[in-house]
């Protein structure tokens, strides 16, 4: 039984899901500010890419660090947080058949976030926040820089209160039966991780704000780094949960897939909730104040339980797609199901590319770089951004883009223009990110530092710099950045054109990214529960092959890194 207020809901003609109109308004508003932040961060990205490309070296030194701050804050905080609030409002209303708890609270959250984001961006562009996203003391920014981020964090906390209150009223009003739907459970995991994240953000930034006002002494650098990274890294784990929830959602909408064992998938989210935030310790692996026990426990033993969770999702999502595709008759050989998948649907291609880039590049490099011993040869080199651009950009951002291709027609009720361009956009963006990240990682392997304006150290008393191979890799980074930026620009322009000038779908039927017959088949497969489904769910040879390729790639990369370590660290 739903608890929607009179006249404040509608039924989606494509998915059949109920849509809370109040939630839909705030989903739209947060999504719009997310895309604006993405555009600002993206412009920063291309300027930085063209500066790190030694042959171009576009920006001046001061502008490099200013734009790096802008890029980090807009991409890793604002784009992600605005979009996540939109995801949370959707996941807690439509799948739960519930209304949003409070529109007033949603307004308060939105206003706090918008004012905070504008304030921080203005401070950065005025040159009053050249402290990079991490804002480590003793670097000091204008108090309004910190205040802006605090306002955004508080705004998200307010949205999280609205999320949990909606979970409460949905439970109370029994708007759904049995366990929470998996997509909502994934969003719940994201929300729980976000609570930990934002409480730590406030703990790190409020003393920094009061210090910048001259009210309190300078925070201890070691203490600040410990607490700040419980904001910086877990913020990306919130993305991770949201991304995986989107994988499950889009896999079901675009292929009719359903997890072959929901309990196992929920168990994987549980492992995220309990253990993934310990990964923050990766950033402190060379900090002198923390013991090897603390580092190894938090980055290895306990964290591997969260890695296990990613491996579970990395198996269940493609295997559920494989089962659905085989049930449609695409069962020849090992990869017929994948070859004949709906690649022209940007929702599908985004999910597959996101999972491949996240798993093969982001996952393998992340686990390797998070090993304390190996970290010593990679810390603060370009290998680190090479890793996280494959997780938070190739993984999360691509998944968020894929969801947008469904949010715009289903929630905004607007049709996309130039659908042919939309169909190829995920490939262009994905290829760009992969090329850029490989360039970063290989340049980092030569020791090229991250967050560095001039790796040739022009004017230094002692000659320093890198050989031509490293500069070649930086050139690859720059080319990848250009391709990715083109993909990003296509996404922003297509989305803005659809949202503000697209044909309204309020009275007409949406054409969809796939034919009507294909979508009907997806729905039929999704609700299939017979013996044929049971039999098909055990035939996942394609996914198993991919899993073994991943395992071999991981083993090779991991041991190559230990070999590299022995080359520079002689143990006698």
């Amino acid at each position, binding site marked *: 039984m739903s608890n929607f207020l009179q006249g404040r809901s509608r039924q989606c003609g494509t998915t059949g899901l109920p849509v809370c109109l109040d939630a839909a308004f705030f989903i739209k508003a947060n999504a719009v500010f997310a895309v604006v932040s993405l555009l600002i961060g993206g412009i920063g990205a291309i300027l930085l890419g063209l500066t790190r490309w030694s042959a171009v070296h576009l920006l001046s030194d001061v502008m490099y660090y200013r734009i790096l701050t802008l890029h980090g804050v807009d991409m890793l905080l604002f784009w992600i947080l605005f979009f996540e609030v939109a995801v949370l409002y959707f996941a807690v209303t439509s799948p739960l058949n519930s209304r949003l708890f409070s529109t007033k609270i949603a307004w308060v959250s939105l206003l706090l976030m918008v004012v905070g984001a504008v304030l921080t961006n203005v401070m950065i562009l005025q040159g009053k926040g050249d402290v990079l996203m991490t804002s480590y003391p003793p670097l000091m920014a204008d108090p309004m820089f910190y205040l802006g981020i605090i306002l955004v964090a508080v705004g998200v906390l307010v949205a999280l209160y609205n999320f949990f209150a909606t979970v409460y009223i949905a439970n109370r009003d029994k708007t759904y039966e049995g366990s929470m739907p998996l997509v909502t459970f994934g969003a719940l995991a994201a929300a729980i991780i976000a609570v*930990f994240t934002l409480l730590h953000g406030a703990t790190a930034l409020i003393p920094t704000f009061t210090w910048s006002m001259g009210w309190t002494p300078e925070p201890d650098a070691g203490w600040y780094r410990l607490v700040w990274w419980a904001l910086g890294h877990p913020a990306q784990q919130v993305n991770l949960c949201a991304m995986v929830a989107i994988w499950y959602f889009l896999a079901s909408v675009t292929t009719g897939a359903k997890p072959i064992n929901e309990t196992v998938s929920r168990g994987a989210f549980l492992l995220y909730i*309990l253990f993934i935030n310990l990964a*923050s310790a990766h950033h402190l692996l060379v900090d002198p104040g923390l013991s090897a026990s603390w580092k190894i426990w938090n980055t290895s033993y306990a964290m591997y339980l969260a890695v296990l969770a990613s491996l579970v999702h990395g198996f269940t999502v493609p295997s559920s797609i494989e089962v659905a595709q085989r049930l449609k008759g695409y069962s020849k050989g090992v990869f017929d199901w994948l070859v004949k998948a709906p690649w022209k649907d940007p929702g599908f291609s985004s999910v597959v590319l996101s999972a491949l880039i996240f798993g093969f590049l982001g996952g393998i490099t992340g686990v390797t770089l998070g090993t304390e011993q190996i970290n010593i040869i990679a810390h603060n080199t370009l290998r680190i951004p090479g890793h996280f651009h494959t997780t938070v950009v190739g993984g999360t951002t691509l998944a968020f883009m894929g969801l947008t291709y469904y949010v715009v027609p289903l929630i905004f009720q607007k049709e996309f223009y130039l659908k042919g361009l939309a169909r190829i956009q995920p490939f262009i963006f994905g290829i760009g990110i992969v090329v850029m990240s490989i360039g970063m990682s290989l340049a980092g392997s030569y020791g090229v530092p991250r967050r560095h304006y001039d790796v040739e150290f022009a004017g230094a008393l002692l000659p320093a710099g890198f050989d031509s191979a490293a500069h070649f890799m930086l050139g690859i980074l720059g080319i990848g950045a250009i391709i990715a930026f083109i993909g990003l620009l296509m996404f922003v322009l297509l989305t803005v054109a659809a949202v503000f000038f697209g044909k309204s779908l309020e009275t007409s039927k949406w054409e969809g990214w796939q034919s009507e017959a294909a979508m009907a088949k997806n729905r039929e497969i999704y609700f299939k529960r017979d013996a044929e489904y049971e039999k098909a769910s055990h035939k996942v040879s394609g996914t198993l092959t991919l899993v073994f390729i991943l395992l071999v790639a991981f083993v090779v990369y991991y041991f190559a890194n230990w070999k590299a370590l022995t080359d520079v660290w002689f143990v006698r």
Partner: protein
Amino acid sequence: METEKKHALQKLMDNPWLLLVLGVVIPTLSYTVWGWIELANMAPATLP
């Protein structure tokens, strides 16, 4: 009517409030509090 007995793990996964508490407390103890204790007990550096 016979009611199906739920597994303890399933009960945990169906309790968002307990998950919220565990999701905040476990990393706070393992990462933050342990880290604070280590930083607080760090001996002052001596001059060479």
